[in-house]
């Protein structure tokens, strides 16, 4: 029983990183912008967050620094693709490569740094429930914040006027423009919000999840987050579930080895990617899922007045 509870706990923790970044990318894509730079932004934010915690000792400030770094990088990306109409995919890829290289370069002197000791998190009373306590109630606050973020995003996108405007910009920027909405400014705000969330996820990785800094430490989580938005057919709740699924598969490969399951470890290492393909196939079997939910103008540049 207890190992299962701990596996669930590790799954939720691993999924949180993916979910926060994927929710950020979802905001981008709902506004019609695809930012392939997630990995690079997360790396820079991871470094920014780590460096801030090293200097100030405050994890909270680290999160803020990570969000600022993510927002700043995505703002550059936003200006390039929204005003200068550069190709979103090429620009995003460039941002990703730049972020990876820059963080490795700027981070060399932080490689051996050590973070202050972390507090152990446990919700009083609830944490003492057998099984559930260990599985659900002994997490970093970010794990719960991530669930709240998902609910908040659902409410924002589907229950508020601002959310409606955001989605309309993503569906048909021409119509939104004709109605008098500042399409470009709205898109930039969406891009920066998405960047900030990617940054938050990056800072969480380097300050809480794996509290150290080494180059390339995001290790592809940004790309999985990008894939998640498609898997989830652009629905926030499914993003969260998908993130937990991936987190679970990632942890399962180690867990199965640890309990001595007689499977080659290389096969287990394949599991997350195998799961990716399986989910893709399942989703593609139902084309209406994608057609109904995919933002209409995704990836396309918008020229006002044309």
């Amino acid at each position, binding site marked *: 029983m207890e190992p299962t509870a701990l596996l669930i706990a590790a799954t939720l923790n691993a999924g949180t990183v993916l979910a926060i970044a994927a929710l950020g990318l979802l905001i981008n894509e709902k506004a019609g912008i695809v930012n392939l730079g997630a990995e690079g932004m997360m790396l820079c934010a991871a470094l920014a967050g780590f460096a801030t915690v090293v200097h100030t000792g405050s994890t909270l400030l680290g999160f803020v620094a990570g969000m600022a770094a993510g927002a700043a990088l995505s703002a550059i990306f936003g200006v390039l693709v929204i005003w200068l109409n550069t190709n979103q995919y090429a620009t995003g890829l460039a941002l990703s490569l730049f972020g990876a290289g820059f963080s490795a370069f700027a981070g060399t002197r932080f490689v*051996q740094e050590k973070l202050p000791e972390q507090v152990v998190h446990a919700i009083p009373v609830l944490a003492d429930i057998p099984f559930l306590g260990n599985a659900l109630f002994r997490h970093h606050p970010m794990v719960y914040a991530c669930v709240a973020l998902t609910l908040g995003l659902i409410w924002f996108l589907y229950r508020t006027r601002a959310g409606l405007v955001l989605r309309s910009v993503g569906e048909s920027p021409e119509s939104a423009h004709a109605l008098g909405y500042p399409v470009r400014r709205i898109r930039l705000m969406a891009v920066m919000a998405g960047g900030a969330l990617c940054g938050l996820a990056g800072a969480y990785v380097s300050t809480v999840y794996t509290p150290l800094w080494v*180059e390339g*430490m995001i290790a592809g989580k940004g790309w999985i987050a990008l894939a998640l938005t498609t898997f989830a057919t652009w629905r926030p709740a499914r993003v969260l579930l998908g993130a937990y699924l991936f987190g679970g598969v990632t942890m399962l490969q180690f867990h199965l080895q640890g309990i001595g*399951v007689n*499977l080659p470890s290389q096969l287990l290492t394949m599991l997350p990617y195998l799961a990716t393909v399986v989910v893709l196939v399942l989703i593609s079997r139902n084309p209406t899922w994608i057609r109904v939910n995919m933002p209409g103008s995704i990836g396309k540049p918008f020229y006002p007045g044309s």
Partner: protein
Amino acid sequence: MTDLSKRSLMKVAALTALAGAALVGCGKKEEPAVPAPAPAAEAPKAEPLKIAFAYVGPVGDGGWTFAHDNARKALEKEFGDKIVTSFVESVPESADAERVLRDMASQGNKLIFGTTFGYMEPMLKVAADFKDVKFEHATGYKTAENMRTYDSRTYEGAYMAGVIAGSMTKSNKLGVVASIPIPEVIRNINSFTLGAQSVNPKIKTSVVWVNGWFDPPKETEAATSLINGGADILFQNTDSSAVLQTAEKMGKRAFGWDSDMTAYGPKAHLGSAVINWAPYYIKATKDALEGTWTTGGVWWGHKEGAIDMVSIAEDVPADVKAKIDTIKAGLKDGSFVIWKGPIAGQDGKEVLAKDAVADDAFLGGIKFYVKGVEGKLPN
């Protein structure tokens, strides 16, 4: 004359640096042992020996590569202006390795160290093309006329770690975060287990493979799952300090590996099994400088000063510390042998008969778990 030659020298140097930068990319760092080039007017000096190191991880990994780089620095201190060293870090064990090694050879390096098993085939190929360059390959088993191997008996450190772990465990479950299933790593897992069993026959060792040498997030996840599975003391054969840091975070104990890692987890740290590459690097450089370099292979252990167990935690009982000292003394004078029968394999069958001593060929080909290690060995 001096002015002119100096300028042309500088030109050549600048060109070389440019070419080097263009070829190798930004990971390249030249570190001359002498601060300024000697003026050309002085008596002509012998050209310094150019030595290059290819590292598999970043020098800041705090473990394997860090230990190699410390030895490189010791080399500079030892030989001063007689040598110039440079290194390229984070060279993957792929086709890139051949490219980097080839660059090193064509840039005039006469002694080249490759510090990971995966460079074996690329290095063989490059060595065949640069007959006047001496190649030194760590942890491999293939040699050539101008390529030899060196290794350290890391399993001695693993055994000593096992002795400490076996004495300190409360759950009798030990966990190992392992990298890639090659004989060296399997030998370390086995030696760790044998060490633990020598003081505590009840222990079991679980192993999680991450299929890489340096991947801190994966090492963290692997360590977490081992602790979740009930292991209270972790040991790793990966290159970063992530396992120790995870143990620190989760209130368990762990070891430093390759370098002294006390600082990464002061509460969790039980001791560090360190490798000191400096004695061998100094010997190899001396061989190359004096023209006595011949091919072959060496395997140095505690006896030669290459392996040690350091910074043992304060709460480790005195009798355990004394036992470690006895082992060290025994390794030094040859009276103690780790791989001495009877040793049983995972299935209980005898792999080493009573009083039989494993030779290096046996140790180099270990592809089985000893009794007490759980799980299936990946092929």
